[in-house]
């Protein structure tokens, strides 16, 4: 793993969505889906991006794929600036950056056979049909499925098999980066394990870089080298899996980890620190800690200014006013 080569580099990214307060009304409200977000992902590592619904993690993934346009900030993917890239450059970035979405049934065309789904990206980029078919068969073997499935339609396959097809389709372009948006949350537990193991095997074999977007802490802790925690559009903590799980610094991360049910009935009655309220309740002012209204440690300054992002130990970042006191 080459530690210092950032393959994805995000700087001060902002994305706002403007909503009407009521139907046909002129009053608008603004949602800061991604707010002043900076992060690096190094080549060959698996980074987990975790957050609850509405935290902006999917918006971020869509911006990285060029499906949504950012308002401000810069993204460099493998040395190319994405925000002002032309059509040709964008196409080139997309061939290096593949994606697997959450619901495998929804992202395979129900009227196309597995073969045409997998060969389509190749054909679009000008690979001869015959060559494309050979590569499709190969990709299917890589995801441990029999070649006979090439002529099946998605509805004839189980959820786990559909997700394997989606992975094969992503792999066929030989990408360097894979963005996985909730890759296993639609699957049963026994099948989830098969798909996760497959993803890890492929990552090692082709030294891929993974950005896994999920809300499932038990999955992410298991596969990632580093974890980024997102809350209401902001990166609140970033560090190695070990740092985040065992030495989390931000109150949000701590309570998030605490909320995950422990798989051991003997520890069931340990009194847990819990959040009041729900994600989405944020202070009126933009320059305030996003968590202030739910945080049990909130102080006056949390409502008045944005806490600074600090490197507390090498490679372990968090933004919280409590940490400035400690230093």
């Amino acid at each position, binding site marked *: 793993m080459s530690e210092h080569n950032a393959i994805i580099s995000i700087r001060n990214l902002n994305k706002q969505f403007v909503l009407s307060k009521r139907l046909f009304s002129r009053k608008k409200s603004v949602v800061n889906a991604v707010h002043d977000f900076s992060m690096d992902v190094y080549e060959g590592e698996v980074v987990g991006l975790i957050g609850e619904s509405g935290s902006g993690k999917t918006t971020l993934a869509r911006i990285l794929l060029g499906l949504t346009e950012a308002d401000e900030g810069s993204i460099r993917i493998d040395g190319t600036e994405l925000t002002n890239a032309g059509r040709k450059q964008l196409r080139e970035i997309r061939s290096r950056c593949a994606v697997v979405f959450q619901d495998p049934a929804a992202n395979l065309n129900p009227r196309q056979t597995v073969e045409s789904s997998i060969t389509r990206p190749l054909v679009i980029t000008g690979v001869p049909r015959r060559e494309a078919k050979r590569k499709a068969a190969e990709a299917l073997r890589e995801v441990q499925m029999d070649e006979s499935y090439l002529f099946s339609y998605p509805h004839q396959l189980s959820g786990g098999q559909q997700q394997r097809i989606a992975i094969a389709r992503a792999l066929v372009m030989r990408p360097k980066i894979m963005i996985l948006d909730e890759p296993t949350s639609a699957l049963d537990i026994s099948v989830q394990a098969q798909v996760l193991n497959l993803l890890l095997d492929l990552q090692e074999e082709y030294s891929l870089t993974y950005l896994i977007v999920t809300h499932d*802490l038990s999955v992410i802790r*298991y596969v990632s080298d580093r974890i980024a925690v997102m809350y209401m559009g902001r990166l609140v903590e970033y560090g190695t899996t070990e740092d985040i799980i065992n030495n989390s610094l931000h109150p949000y991360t701590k309570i998030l980890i605490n909320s995950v*049910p422990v798989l051991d009935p003997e520890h069931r009655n340990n009194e847990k620190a*819990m959040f009041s309220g729900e994600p989405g309740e944020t202070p009126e002012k933009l320059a305030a800690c996003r968590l202030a209204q739910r945080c049990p440690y909130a102080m006056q300054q949390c409502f008045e200014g944005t806490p600074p992002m600090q490197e507390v130990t090498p490679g372990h970042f968090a933004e919280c006013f409590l940490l400035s006191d400690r230093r």
Partner: protein
Amino acid sequence: METVDIGKALLQLENLSIDYRINTGMLSAVHNVNLTLRHGEIYALVGESGCGKSTIAHNVMRLSIDHNEVINGRIIFEGQDITSIPEPEMEKIRGKKIGMIFQNPLDSLNPVYRSGTQVTEALMLDGMSKKEAVLRTIELFRDVQIPNPEQRIAAFPHELSGGMRQRVMIAMMLARNPSLLIADEPTTALDVTVEAQILRIMKRLQQKFRTGILLITHNFGIVAEIADRIGIMYAGEIVEEGTVFDIFKNPVHPYSRALLSTLPRYHKSLRRIAAIDGNVPRITEKRAECRFRNRCPYSSEDERCATQSPNAVSFGSGHIVRCHRAEEDRV
């Protein structure tokens, strides 16, 4: 460890089998299920999708009106056989004595009525005056920890978050004070921090009102957190049943063992999880065989797996396993 006062039987399923007529024959969704849920007990039915756990829940409530459905066996609620009682009788039980909450609260709430109205409606069915009902609704909203209940009763479902909607559902169910609650994947659609709050509310209900809860889920984390007893379902059958400690500490059936080892656990970071190869079969032809046979690592060692249905073997108080191998190791 707390002791839950376990009383007499509230819900019993006796040899319950549910089949569906499909164009190629009969699909066996539930096969020979025996289950007892006592007052004040949380019983979790756990299994992968398609194992029949929701089919059981829907049939206890008699929510499915599928003419291609064939039910055998008995469903006994509070000592009364409700399998074939007429619909008007069932209407007195449904909602009043057995409450149910579903996975997606937005599907279960009426989008054109205010959330409070939907709860007061349930109360007025029991002959309460409108004024009383509104006051009681506010009280119920407070019980399920909805902030500012006086204002929230006027909110439409789309104005509430997922967690708030699920709380409204629970309040609606509570309004008629049922003795049995069926919770079908109650927190699957919610975030973990909200899930923890909802689980705490359910636990409190069980302790305060001694409500029996039949919890349908595929999430072992929730089970470890609140269940008293567990039934593990596979392809329509309960393959193992026991207390939460029996199942987590000493699982016997190969499927339960495999399922528990597929869980990405916190304290392990081996970077590989044990997986179960293959998929759950669709049973369209009833044969005398073990339904887990094609995925079981031991089935090649024993010819009975292909020729006989395994019997239920008891492993001491309430711990029951259906496996041929267990018959030899029995304690």
